[in-house]
Each structure stands twice: as C-alpha cells, then as structure tokens.
C-alpha cells in the first residue's frame, strides 16, 4: 500500500494575532510546528504501515523552505519518503490553488492508495484542502474520519458526527481527513531523529510536478479576503446566587420567556 499524508507547517498558537491594517496573520516570533491534526493523519498512516507490512508512507507539504522541518519531524516518526513542494509560483495560493498544486505532486508519485489529511489546519481553519485535493484527483473523500481498516482493496471508515458515527465502505484509492480522536500521535524515535538530521530535502518546483502556471498562486486564487477579525471575547453573562432555588428558578423561567426562548 502507498499512503500519502499531506501536512502543513503552522504557527504554534491558537491565538495568532491579526494585523488590523493588512488583514493578515502576524507570524513574527511565533514558533512553527506541524499542524496538530496532521499529526493524527500521519499517525493513522504509520499504524496502517505497522498492520500492513510493506506499506510506504510518503509525506507531502507545500510551503517555504523552512517547511522542510515538519517533513523531518515526520521522518523522525517513521515516514519513508518526503516531498517538499516549494516554488515562488505557489506563493499566495488559496485552498483552491493549494489543492490543485498538491494534487499535481501526488499524480507524479507512484499511485497512492490512500491520501490522508488532518481535519483542518489550525491557522486557516477552512478544512477545504483535503476534499479539494480529492476532487482534483477524482477520488472519493471521507471527511472527519476517526477510524480506518483496510482489507481486500477497500477501506472501512468511521466518520464522526456530533451525535454518532457512520461506518462507510470506501473504494481505494480514497482520501480521508482525520480527527484528533483517531489516535494519540507517537513521538519521534531516536533512530528516526538521527535519520532526519542527515536528510537533505531538495524542493520540487511547479515545473517538476508539471503544474499549470495559470492555476497557481495568488492570481489563480478565487478567494478574496474581505476582512479578518478576532471575534469579540464572550462576555461573562449574568450570575444569580444566594437565594432560594425556587426563587432563582422562577427568575430564570421569566427571563427565558421574556427573550422568547421558551
């Protein structure tokens, strides 16, 4: 089996500040990490590899040269091969152009049976790239997967909902976006870290993957950011205490009725 895991390098914080003038993320001084949900996708791939000997796990990322760091982290944990898609032509790509670019790189590889993604990236939070790549590749996609079993050329996947889950039979090749609940990501091994240290990662250009320049970068991206803003923090609400429960209950019921909530 060949499993491709698409990962992204993201700033390590859930409170990235936004520059109100340019509407862009302020990344200065923020450490870069492997997107946490992608860790679950990688772990799913590595567990499948343990269960199905001979499986090859390739980790793919698109990003600046520093994004090689997340690929090294992946090698430390047991990835067999890595691809760094890195070219000025990709700069400014939105989820549509990114999905296209990633799909061209995947087409260049030996045929993939599974293409895994994290549920979403913690910086953009769109959750669009996984399904987007699947679309470009013309393969089925199961989003929000928490479990997978592969046998007889198909996958049985559990897809989570707020109130339950679906068990789906999916033909291979297919794409999955993976939830945090799926597993506990392993830490890098000593030998893996050593191998990663020695690794020299040569970037793959747009030309090398045969991507159509008209579909790349800022100009090819249909998304226009109108406004980015930090939502106002939730206010504390009202708190009543110190009176008889019956009195408090009456007051609550009155308020709910007044606001037409009941």
């Amino acid at each position, binding site marked *: 089996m060949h499993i491709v895991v698409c990962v992204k390098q993201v700033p390590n914080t859930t409170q990235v500040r936004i520059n109100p003038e340019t509407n862009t993320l302020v990344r200065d001084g923020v450490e870069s990490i492997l997107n946490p949900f992608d860790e679950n996708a990688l772990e799913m791939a590595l567990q499948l590899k343990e269960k199905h000997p001979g499986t090859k796990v390739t980790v793919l990322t698109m990003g600046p040269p520093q994004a090689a760091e997340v690929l090294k982290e992946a090698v430390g944990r047991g990835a067999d091969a890595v691809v760094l898609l890195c070219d000025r032509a990709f700069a400014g790509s939105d989820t549509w152009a990114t999905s296209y670019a990633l799909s061209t790189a995947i087409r260049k590889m030996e045929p993939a049976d599974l293409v895994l993604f994290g549920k979403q990236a913690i910086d953009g939070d769109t959750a669009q790239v996984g399904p987007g790549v699947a679309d470009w590749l013309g393969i089925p996609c199961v989003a929000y997967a928490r479990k997978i079993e592969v046998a007889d050329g198909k996958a049985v996947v559990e897809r989570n909902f707020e109130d339950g889950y679906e068990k789906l039979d999916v033909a291979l090749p297919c794409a999955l976006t993976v939830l945090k609940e799926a597993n506990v990501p392993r830490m890098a091994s*000593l030998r893996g870290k050593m191998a990663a240290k020695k690794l020299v990662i040569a970037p793959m250009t747009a030309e090398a993957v045969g991507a159509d320049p008209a579909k790349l970068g800022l100009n090819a991206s249909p998304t226009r950011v109108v406004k980015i803003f930090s939502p106002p923090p939730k206010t504390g609400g009202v708190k009543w205490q110190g009176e008889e429960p019956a009195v408090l209950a009456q007051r609550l019921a009155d308020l709910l009725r007044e606001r037409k909530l009941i």
Partner: protein
Amino acid sequence: MSELNYGLSELALEIRAMVREFAESRVKPVRAELDETGHFPTEILRELGKMDLMGLYIPAEYGGTFEGDSMPNLIAVEELSRICIGVSVSFAANGLGADPILIGASDEQKKKFLPPLASGEKWAAYALTEPNAGSDAGSIRTTAVKKGDKYVLNGTKQWITNGGEADIYTVFAVTDKNRGARGVSCFIVEKGTPGFKFGKKENKLGIRASATRELIFEDCEVPAANLIGREGTGFIWAMKTFDVSRPGIAAQAVGLAQGALDEAVLYAKVREQFGKPIIANQGLSWMLADMATKVETARALTYATVQSIDRGAKDYSKFSAMCKVYASDVAMQVTTDAVQVFGGYGYMKEYPVEKMMRDAKILQIYEGTNQIQRDIIGLALNKEYGAVAKK
C-alpha cells in the same frame, strides 16, 4: 533554568530532551492513577521501545545504540524518575536483568537474547533475592542440578522487579552447595519454560506501578546453553552487575529528588500566608536552598562515577556504592522536605509530593540496602589504607 556543564554528548542531550518531553506528556498525566491502581505501565514501556530508548545500553552489534557512552541511558532513567519512579524502575530493571548477559555471556548468547531487549519487544528481570537471602545474597538456596544438556531448577525468588511482565530472566542458583558463593551460577530463563511460575503482584508502599513478584521454579528444565559463563561464576556476575547498576539507582534518586524540588519551589512561589508567598520567608527558602544543593551534589557524584567507568576505571565498587547511598538518602530527605513545604496539602493525594516521598523509601533498600553500601565503602577504605600503611 541554569545548570552545570557536565560535558554531556550531543546524544545524551538529545535523549534528555526526548525523555523529558515523553515523561511530561505521557507519564505525568497517568502517574497518580498508576500509583492508585498499581497497574503496570505496559503502554509506556511499549512506546519507549518504539522510540529506540530500550537499547541505549546495548551495543550496536546486538541491536542497541550504545557506543561507549553510558550517560544517555542514565539520563533517560533520571528524566523518567523526575516524573515517576514506578515507571522508571520498570524501564531500568530491563538493564539490570540484561547486565549479567552483557557482562558474562558468550557472543552466541548475546546475539540470541539481547536484540529483542534492545528493540523493546521483550523485557528482562534480575532474580537474586530469596525469602531467606536478602542482604546476604550468597546464602541463596535455589538449586540447579545438571541433567544431560539441561539444568533442573528448584526454589523460590522473592520481590523480583518486572517479575511476570518480563520475558527473559537472569536467575542465580546454587550448582555446588559446598562452595558457598563460589557455588552459585547464573542462568537465562525464558518465560513460558515449563515449571517456571509467578506469585501474586506485591502490594507496596511506593513504586506501585512497578511489578514485584515471586518466581517459583518447580523442576524447571533450562537448556545448559543458557548458563552464563562457567558453573560457579554466578556470584561474580551478580556483583559486577551491581557495580554498574547502582549508579542507575542513584539516577532514579537524583531524578526523583529533582522532581520533588521542582514541585516544592513552584508551590512556595504561589502559596501565600501572612500576606506574602511562603518562599519569601528565609526559613523556607533556606530549606529549598539545601534541597537544591543536595540534588546537584548527588547528580555530580553520580555523573562523575559513570563518566569515570566509561573512561575505563578499574576499581569503582566504592564509588558506585557512594552514589547509590548518597543520592538515595538525598531523595528521601528532599521528598520529605517537599511534603513539608506543601504543608497539609503535601499530605494529600491531590498533590504529587506524598507519592514521591513514599516512592523514595525503596531507593534506600533495593540493590543492596544503604547499610550494605556503607559496608562496601568501609571495606574498600580498610583495604586501600591498609595498602598505604604497609608501604
């Protein structure tokens, strides 16, 4: 935090960072539960194996990563111990069980038994103590009688760490009862050998996650090929093992004491009485200063002993005994003081220091009690100064 420069190798520093992160993220969240339930940390050890951390003391030719530097393994033990010595002893007992093989076994035996230990696929244990032979280990009564190409073992081992969980046991038994300690031999016994059974897991004061069990041998036939060295050399392997393993106990003590110190200082900064943090009282900050000084002294002695062994020191039993006795006494004092710094809260199970204090006690007992360590140091002094006097 500021630290002394012990000249640690790049590998040792890498291991320290790896194990520190592992202990914080994987062990800390479950240590109280492991202590309460006494569950063996199977998952944690499996993960350490996958991270290539179970073979730090085993040479590359036998599947490990050891290349003459014992510090990475020692530091792995120390870092696990900062968070939980119930876990760290379960990890370190593999090395204790493997040491007689590393020290005394043939190349063929090493090739057979060490690689699965290095990969973490199998675990080991060291079986010397018996109900009637503790400090006086030379008086063990388990027997091994040669029968064709087998030895038949009969007897009971007591309080064996990793007992029941381990796959490979180094077991000491008497092959010639007329020769005392010189009649003891060491055998490699695999779990599942007919006639080899386990008693129940002991219910202990501390290190409750670790498994301590009885090993029962009833006409247990062990291949003669599993004898380490020649007949009668067992006690030598037993003692040589302790010389290299005692600094490991010291590393547990240093880690545990460091963990207690960390907790105590952080607490003293946030707990306020009389309108100020308790650390602002000289009486308390001097206590913390003494605790920190003791921890660093214990670490320095332990590292110096191990680095000296790595550099080819010949006579080091005295120093191994010194770091074990000193560091374990420090661990007992520092964990007790940490409870004192926490006051009543320290006595409660909601906080980690009462567990640390309970855990510390074992360090003064196993791998030779601290009385026995002082005996070893005293005997060495008597011998060394005797030689000077004669000159």
